[in-house]
Structures are given as C-alpha cells and as structure tokens.
C-alpha cells in the first residue's frame, strides 16, 4: 500500500501547473500545425468532503480539466496530486510557480525528483501502479444518453466497476448492485432492463450508481444536470447532495448554471480560456465578485430581490480561440475594465498602422516616406519605408503619432507601446513582453488573477 492510502489527508485532489494542449492536424501530411491550449496552467485543489464548483463558458476547458484530474488523459505538463497534506500541496504549488516563471517553457509532466511528492502524484505513476487509484475517483458525465452502454443490462453496467476493482464474487457484487440501485432511488426490477427503457433522469441515476459502485472518494460531476428537464434537475442535485452527506464524498461540480452552484457548492473556481481567474467560498463569490469576468457571469443570474438586482453586463465579442489565446490577461479583449497594461498584441496595432503611418492616407504622416511593409516580430512591430532610411526626425513624427493615437478611444494597443526606435533602416514599435496577472489572495480563501488588484512586488 502506498502511504497516501492509509491516511486521509486534507486535500483530496490537487492540480499544479496543469496543462493540456491538443494538437491540431492539418494539410495532406496530417502534421501538427497548431495547439489547442484547452487547459493552460491550472492550479486547483479540492478539500476532502467539500464541493468545489468549476464554472465558465462552454469551451473554456472544464471537461478537459476534469479528465486530467481523473487521469483519463495524460497532461502536457503539470501534475495531479491525490490525497495530499495541505502543506505539501502548497509547497508544490509554490515551487511549480517559481520554476514556471523562471523558464516559462513547457516542462515535463514529472516534477523534480526527490521532492517528496512521489506518493501523491498520480500523474507520475505507470498505468499499472495507477490502477488502485482508479476506483477512488469516478466521473458522472453530462449526457446520460451516451454514457450508458445500450447493449448492457443495468445490472451488468453497475456490476462491471465492482467486479473490476473490488475483490468480490459475482453474487456479492450483485447484492451491492441491488443496494446501489436503491440508494439512487430506483427499484430492484430495474436491474433487468436496458438503458433505453429509462428516462433521462433515471439514466442519470444509473450513471450516478455506476460512479458510486467501486466505492470512490471523489466524484467528478461534469454538468450532471444540463442535459435533463428542468423538473428533474433539482431531484438529481438533491440526490447528489444526499449521497454526499451520507458517504462523506468529495465533489468537483462542473457547471455553467450559477443557481446550481449556489445550491451545491462550498467553493467556486471560475475558469476562462484554460485558466482559473478567480476562486472563493460560494457566499463570498456571489456577494463580492472581484474579477470582471466573474461579475459579468453573475450579472446574468436572476436575483429574486429587486433592490439587489445588478445591471446586466454583456460580454462583447466572442470567446477568443484557445489555439491562440490573447497575451497578457486572457480576458482583455472582452473586459469592461481593461487597462493599458492588461494585455496587448502587436497584431491589434498592426492593422491600424497601415492607415496611421501611410503618408498617402494620413495628412499628419505627410513627412514620412512611403510605408512599404509592416512586419510583426514577437513583441515588436517593424515599419519599413520602401528603400529609404528613416531619419531621427521621422522617428519623432512616428512617436508623436503613436502618442496621439493612444489618447483616442480604442487606442489601447497604442498605449502599450513602450518605445519607438530607429533600427537598421526601419522604425520599430516596441511592446513590453506580455505578462499574465499574478494569482493574488485578496482575502482568506478568495484569490483572483486581475491587474485591478495589487500585484505582488516583483
């Protein structure tokens, strides 16, 4: 037995620096042409016995994060710790953040050797060594219409995880199956039916019973009610709450329904485009959300008390693609509180420069030679003026134009320009290297990643 098996530690599931990048294949040769950064550096923990809700728009990586935590897919980098003492988790998290800042590069899923995490890090285990952990973490998926094998009888669906994981004879397993069915509110004669003979709510009960079958400690509930009729949703949620109370289970509840969160969760983590942007106890998050994204999400929830009703914040634009997430704060393209240093991309400025610095189109640029090319080089935007070498005076003109444009509405990208320099017969606009806002604990248990809140001194 591993040491982590004997003792119940405070943190049941913890993620450090977790990333999952899916390759996008293209072309005739099916080569990897890009990466979908579905989960892109997540630190998250679930305490034993609590319910942590994970909320965020569809496509932000919630399901992928859940699959990573259960080791249903291997991470690109980062680690998942299971049943780990709180202090060890905290130090692992610190260490990971430091190393991530230092090299910023992709690291192997295995952390440094001899860091004392080996007994907890399930991502370091080989398949065979991971097997005993399998039964301790079980999923319930969103769609009960595809999550049950249509060619199996309910009794066989429920018996399978028991026969695989728990040393039980078939009759013993069947006794447990009957008991499980009762626990989720179904009748014994339902055992000899096929999944298609049930309604959505009943199917979800069967899926829950299957997840409970191998006696897990942790349940991943991936939008367990969003495929169900509204009238059935509450029943299923109450069943889950009941089971948790009776068996002391730990839940990670993925949802985009915030009323479900209020009903079920002790703590909430808000996810945006592959990262966690805010985390707080449920009450606190609903009462004083900090991150502009959280505020926007909450503003969409109907509030019964008209005096406390918030103004609805509409998120402009679409969710950016996780293939190429915005630099800096990922939310800056849609944030209503955005500041110049939140995030920028030379690309945002590139299209405007074609007009701004073209002497034939902008009279203020008439002293500049004809603009022939704008090229992007990392954090720099290079302006080429035909064959002629720009002079210091012309650099000054460009710098003034940048300043003037930055003052105008929508000049955010220009505000971020740090310097305008002459270089190799061209003028270069320099942007600072983009930094994501740091993860700061604003009050106990309430953390946020946003430049609106004091950043730690570098």
């Amino acid at each position, binding site marked *: 037995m591993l040491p982590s098996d004997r003792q119940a530690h405070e943190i049941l599931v913890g993620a450090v620096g977790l990333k999952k990048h899916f390759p996008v294949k293209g072309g005739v040769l099916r080569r990897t042409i890009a990466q979908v950064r579905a989960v892109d550096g997540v630190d998250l923990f679930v305490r034993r016995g609590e319910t942590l809700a994970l909320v965020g728009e569809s496509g932000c990586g919630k399901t992928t994060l859940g*699959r990573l935590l*259960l080791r*249903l897919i291997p991470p690109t980098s980062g680690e998942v710790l299971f049943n780990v003492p709180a202090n060890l988790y905290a130090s692992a998290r610190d260490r990971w953040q430091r190393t991530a800042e230092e090299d910023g590069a992709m690291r192997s899923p295995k952390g440094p050797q001899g860091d004392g995490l080996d007994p907890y890090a399930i991502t370091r285990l080989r398949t065979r060594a991971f*097997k005993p952990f*399998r*039964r301790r*973490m*079980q*999923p319930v*998926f*969103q*769609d009960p219409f*595809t*999550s*049950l*094998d*249509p*060619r*199996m*009888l309910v*009794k*066989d669906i429920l018996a*399978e*995880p028991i026969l*695989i*994981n728990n040393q039980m*004879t*078939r*009759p*013993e397993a*069947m006794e447990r199956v009957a008991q499980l069915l009762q626990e989720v509110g179904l009748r014994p004669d339902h055992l*000899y*039916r*096929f999944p*298609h003979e049930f309604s959505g709510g009943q199917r979800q009960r069967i*899926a829950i019973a*299957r997840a409970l*079958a*191998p006696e897990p400690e942790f349940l991943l509930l991936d939008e367990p009610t969003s495929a169900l009729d509204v009238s059935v949703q509450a029943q299923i949620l109450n069943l889950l709450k009941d089971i948790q109370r009776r068996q002391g289970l730990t839940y990670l509840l993925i949802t985009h329904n915030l009323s479900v969160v209020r009903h079920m969760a002790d703590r909430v983590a808000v996810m945006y485009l592959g990262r966690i942007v805010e985390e707080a106890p449920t009450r606190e998050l609903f009462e004083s959300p900090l991150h502009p994204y959280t505020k926007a999400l909450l503003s969409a929830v109907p509030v019964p008390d008209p005096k406390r009703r918030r103004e609805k914040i509409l998120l402009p634009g679409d969710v950016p693609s996780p293939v190429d997430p915005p630099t800096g704060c990922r939310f800056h393209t849609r944030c209503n509180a955005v500041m110049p240093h939140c995030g920028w991309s030379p690309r945002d400025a590139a299209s405007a420069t074609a007009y701004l610095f073209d002497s034939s189109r902008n009279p203020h640029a008439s002293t500049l030679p004809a603009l022939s090319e704008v090229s992007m080089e990392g954090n720099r935007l290079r302006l080429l003026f035909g064959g002629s070498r720009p002079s210091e005076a012309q650099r000054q003109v460009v710098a003034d134009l940048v300043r003037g444009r930055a003052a105008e509405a929508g000049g955010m990208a220009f505000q971020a320009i740090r310097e305008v320099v002459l270089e190799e017969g061209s003028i270069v606009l320099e942007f600072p290297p983009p930094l994501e806002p740091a993860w700061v604990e604003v009050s106990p248990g309430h953390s946020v990643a946003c430049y609106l809140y004091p950043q730690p001194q570098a």
Partner: protein
Amino acid sequence: MGAHVEVRRGIRSASGRAELWRGLRRRLDEYSLTLRLLLKRPLAAAGLLITLLYVGIAIAASFLPDRDVLQTNFTTAYPQPPWWWGNGTPGSWFGTTYPGIDLGMAIFKAIRIDLYYSSIVVLGGAIVGMLVGLVAGYKGGLFDEGLMRSTDVAYSIPFLVFAIAVAYVISRDFTTLNLSLLILWWPPYARLVRSQVLAVKANMFVEAARAAGASDLRIMFRHILPNTLAPVFVQVSLDLGVVIQIFAALIFIGFVPHSGYLPELGALIFYGFGSEPTSYPWTILFPGLALVIFTVGVNLLGDGLRDVLDPRLRR
C-alpha cells in the same frame, strides 16, 4: 457456524444462477422483439423464410448419400424431363441432366456445397475484417494507418483477376477458389467495422468504462464490438448471395476443370448448357432458379435486417 456459512453460500450461488438466467431471458426477449419486427415486414419475412429453407435443404442434403444423386438410368443418356413435363419420366420431380444425373438431388447437394463454402468465405472475411477494423479503429495512430493502407491495397485488386491469377499459380480447383476469395473478402468488413468503431468510441460509456478501470481488451470486446455488429449482419447476408453468384459464374466459365462431377449450381447450369439447352430447357432452368431465388432471399433478408437493426427505428 460452519454450516451456517455453507447455507449462505448455497443461497447465494442459487441467486447467482437466477440472476444470470434472468439476464439471459431478458436478452432473448430483446432478440425475439427484433424477430417480430422483422416478420412484420412481408418482404423481409419472405427473405428470412427463403434463407431458412435453403439452410434446411443444405442440412438435409448432407445426410443424402452420394449414390442417390447418381442413381440414374444410364440406358437413356439424354436428359429426361420431370413427370409433369410433357411426356415426362414417372417418379422424377425435376428430371435428369446430362449425364443422367437426377437433377433434384443434384440441386440439393449443390445448395449444400454452395452455402457451406460461401458461408466460410463470408464469415471468415467478416471475422478477420471485424478484428482488424476493431483494433485499427480503437488504437488509431500508425497502427490504424498501416492496417488501412493494406486494406486499400487488397481493395484495389479485382477479385476475379486475383482468383484467376491464384488459380494459375497454385491450382485450378474449388479449394483454391475459396482460399483466394477468403483472402480478398475481409477488407470491406475491416472498413465497415472501423468506421463504426470510430463512431462508438466517441460515446461517453467508453470513457466511463476506462474510468472504471476496464482494460483495452474489455473495452474493445465488451463495449465497442457489440455496438458495431448490426451493419455486419446486414453485410453478411447480402454477401452470401454475392459469393454464391461468384462461385457459379467462375465455375460456369470453366475456372474449375469439369473433370469428374461437382455438385455446384454453376456447374449444373454448365452441364445443362452442354446438352442442347433448347431441347432440354429444365436442365438450366432449375439450377438457375435455385440460384436466383437464394440471391433474392438473402437480399430481402439483408434489407429487412438493415431496417430493424437500425436503433433509430427501434423506438
């Protein structure tokens, strides 16, 4: 104390058997529902009836001694008509064919041979193709790529050309013909099953099984394969007709030298052709009809199966 435990054991294993038995009965109910759905369609029911009739004939024919077929009247070397045909021979239902073979018996024997060998080709191809398609679709990656490219190669060879080539290299006999068909018959099944596997694999019950600790083998054979079988059944029944036609065609054009007597439908038609068909039309009419009716039967059955096995039409 010990006795008490014994008693408990006994009760448990009895209830264990009851559980398995009840599960089995429930599954049989499901199959009989499929059968009832099939029988509700007149064409499909006719197809099933014809197919079962042929299977029955094939089984019965294997109990006939060979000499019954050859029990002929060599005094008249010309084919004799059946008794109900003009000035027919009393006692002979289907007449005789050159060289004095009883046609009814010969057709029974031929059905047995044709059905037996075409089943070997089709079922053999289906099983091999199913395994290849299952592994390729489930594992994916380079393995999939390799397997599917090799089915492409096998796919691109016209089987008549291949069969004839094999025959000239190895030998021109019935066994070789079977062998070459068997080699070429699995790729369509591999493709069919692979595409099914890709669709089934995307279902969350596969991920749930993985989360429950099921091994790859278990997932492939318990969860994925049973969900891919319906179109395979359809294809098998359609292919039975196709393979019998290929046999008949190849033997008719003389792929297998007619040294000696081969009770096979194509061969029987060939014998009839060799004996002035205009004077003795029954010699090609009866074996031809036997072939056509079987082909139509399995096609009707296949179409019916396609309909009733489609889960979207079930409920």
